[in-house]
């Protein structure tokens, strides 16, 4: 059904708002999950007391409050009594975090290049969010608007904003703009630790961009497409069985590069706290800092989504092309239906891996990081691409 221009604009706006809200809500939830997961790894409890702190400690604990917030609070404390659910008591910490960041004093250091200083977090965060426009959370429509709905009534609501045929190129292109935010912010701070952090970051991200892109070429070659939906579908359901180990290896190389791309442990050199205080965002406070923060976690979601889409079977159940075997059971079987839940499950699992690794591994040194990138990852990916091309030729 062709859409009118009004319908197009309204639908796009609705999708944008939903997407932004989704990512923006996911980021604080990841930070909360990070607190809790790391806490459990480190034999401690993590945040357990925010419920009382936010809405008045007494209200929740005594269960006597008749107000809505008191009741919510009471519920959280009640659920917190169950050992497995004790996270509920600390859950509001992500709101508290956001409130804290919003209300912090916004400092621009003396001697900083003010315009660039303000602009650079924006560059980071905009590039991080723009990329999501090419990511498909589900291959088709999430739901259809009921007919009585104004303007867009009867239209399907897609789980992707755009379905461009060079989606991967778009994603890589836009996401690599994010490094400008880091380098410019570091430079504009007029401070030495951020400068070092920014230089590290520039070198690191540019170095790891190469193997990251090369490893993504493997599914591109195997599927012959650059469209997100197409690639996700074909890597899950239509790959040659010889390509399964290839996807497996490619996934590990991609994940390694993804850790470096997102400045996470063990490659968090740009913001190595114990070396560079806070790296490139040392001088940033308040909302500007939280922009970097948002960008970093949005990037984490993005790289997880890409990995889930291209290596882990996308919207289908099984990873690494194993779904191909299941497809023989008929496309109507429930486990052969693409679903947003499969996709989100994989993304969340990868995010958990990010946190898990952070709690476990020490940090590489700068020269060792370069060493790993240029001497190991790039040659390996080149070999992979060659093999992928070979398989494609055979198939």
């Amino acid at each position, binding site marked *: 059904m062709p859409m009118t221009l009004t319908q197009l604009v309204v639908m796009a706006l609705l999708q944008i708002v939903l997407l932004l809200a989704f990512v923006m809500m996911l980021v604080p939830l990841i930070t909360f999950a990070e607190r809790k997961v*790391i806490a459990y790894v480190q*034999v*401690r409890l993590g945040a357990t007391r925010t419920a009382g702190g936010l809405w008045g400690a007494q209200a929740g604990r005594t269960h006597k409050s008749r107000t809505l917030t008191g009741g919510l609070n009471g519920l959280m404390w009640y659920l917190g009594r169950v050992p497995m659910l004790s996270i509920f008591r600390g859950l509001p910490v992500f709101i508290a975090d956001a409130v804290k960041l919003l209300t912090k004093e916004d400092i621009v250091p003396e001697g900083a290049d003010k315009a660039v200083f303000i602009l650079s977090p924006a560059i980071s965060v905009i590039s991080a969010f723009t990329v999501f426009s090419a990511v498909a959370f589900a291959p088709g429509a999430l739901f259809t608007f009921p007919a009585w709905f104004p303007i867009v009534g009867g239209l399907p609501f897609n789980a992707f904003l755009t379905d461009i045929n060079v989606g991967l190129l778009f994603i890589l292109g836009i996401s690599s703009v994010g490094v400008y935010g880091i380098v410019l912010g570091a430079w504009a701070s007029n401070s*030495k630790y951020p400068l070092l952090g920014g230089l590290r970051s520039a070198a690191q991200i540019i170095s790891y961009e190469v193997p990251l892109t090369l490893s993504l070429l493997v599914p591109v070659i195997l599927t012959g497409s650059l469209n997100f939906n197409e690639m996700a579908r074909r890597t899950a359901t239509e790959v040659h069985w010889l390509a399964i180990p290839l996807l497996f290896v490619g996934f590990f190389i991609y994940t390694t590069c993804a850790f470096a791309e997102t400045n996470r442990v063990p490659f968090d050199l740009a913001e190595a706290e*114990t070396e560079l205080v806070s790296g490139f965002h040392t001088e940033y406070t308040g909302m500007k800092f939280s922009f970097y923060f948002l960008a970093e976690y949005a990037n984490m979601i993005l790289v997880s989504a890409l990995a889930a889409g291209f290596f882990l079977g996308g919207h289908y159940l099984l990873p690494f092309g194993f779904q191909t075997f299941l497809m023989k059971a008929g496309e109507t079987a429930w486990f052969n239906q693409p679903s947003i839940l499969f996709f989100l499950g994989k993304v969340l699992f990868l995010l958990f891996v990010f946190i898990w690794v952070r709690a*476990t591994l*020490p940090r590489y040194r700068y020269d060792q990081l370069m060493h790993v990138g240029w001497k190991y990852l790039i040659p390996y990916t080149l070999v992979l691409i060659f093999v992928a091309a070979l398989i494609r030729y055979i198939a």
Partner: protein
Amino acid sequence: MFKTEEMEINLGPQHPSTHGVLRVKLRLDGETVVKCTPIIGYLHRGVEKICEDKTYFQGQVWTDRMDYVASVSNNLGWAEGVEKLFGITVPRRAHYIRTMLTELNRLSSHLLWLGTHALDIGAMTVFLYAFREREQILDCFEAFCGARLTTTAFRIGGLREDLPPGFIKQVQAFQDRFLDCLDEYETLLTENRIWKKRTVGVALLNADDAIALGVTGPVLRAAGNPYDIRKAFPYAAYAEMQFDVPTRTAGDTYARYQVRLEEMRQSHRIIQQCVDGLPEGPVMAKLPKVLKSEVNEVYHAIEAPKGELGYYFVGEKGSQNPYRMHVRAPSFVNLQALPKMTEGKLLADVIAAIGTLDVVLGEVDR
């Protein structure tokens, strides 16, 4: 048109990983350290001057505040130094209890080192694990003397009180699980590739340089020299204890890590011997109420967790205060080796070197 310029950067005095208020002035060429100048004194309180105004009994309280991570060792050095000055014979039971507490303190100091050192290098989980065990040790101190950190555990001539009831049981409970905990740390670090990459061959210091710079303790032993004052000049009950002095020859950060972990195992062994062979008897020597010294001059050194901790006393005839008190702080002397270990290396190695030297700024600046 283009030229490169060396950058001068201040690591500290307020920095997450300079373990206090150490300031290191670095000249960097990119990330390579060209020149490294430690600048100290931000925590200088003049303990030596203060102790000149305090009696021998009062002065011990100040020793807690020097190496606050290993205050029991500091107390032991002071108490034994003063006992040497006066020629006091301490009962054997007191010696045993002192040895036990000092070794527990060595464990707590090494655990803190392990945690913070790993944290500096980026492994954050070990820190929490190490503190879990350290907490148990501090509970033992609390049971013994009421304080967890600034213990003032001993008295001149022995101990103020005998062990509280249940103390041995408490220590034994710790002893029973500690070795497993050590294995747990090792699974996280010892064979970890990144950990080895960050520590093997980093912050090298060979034995000759170490001795020339006065470096003692685990740093010297990791370079291959088995100098341990507990063996070389036995004090307290160490002459009666069976233990080995772990050494490595590499002289790098990884070797120091191994030496310290092995030392923890040996400390565990010593504590077990103290617990098993604790003699009966008094814990305090018979002393006059007021101690007035003769003219004397002593230097007494013990093996603190960081190295040789020496106390130099000058006694004045008929005086209750030391005429002069000087502390040979192991951290102070060891820190001299920092430029030697880091120049020509990378910025991240400076952090590793500071961590591996295990300096406590309260002791460096006194």
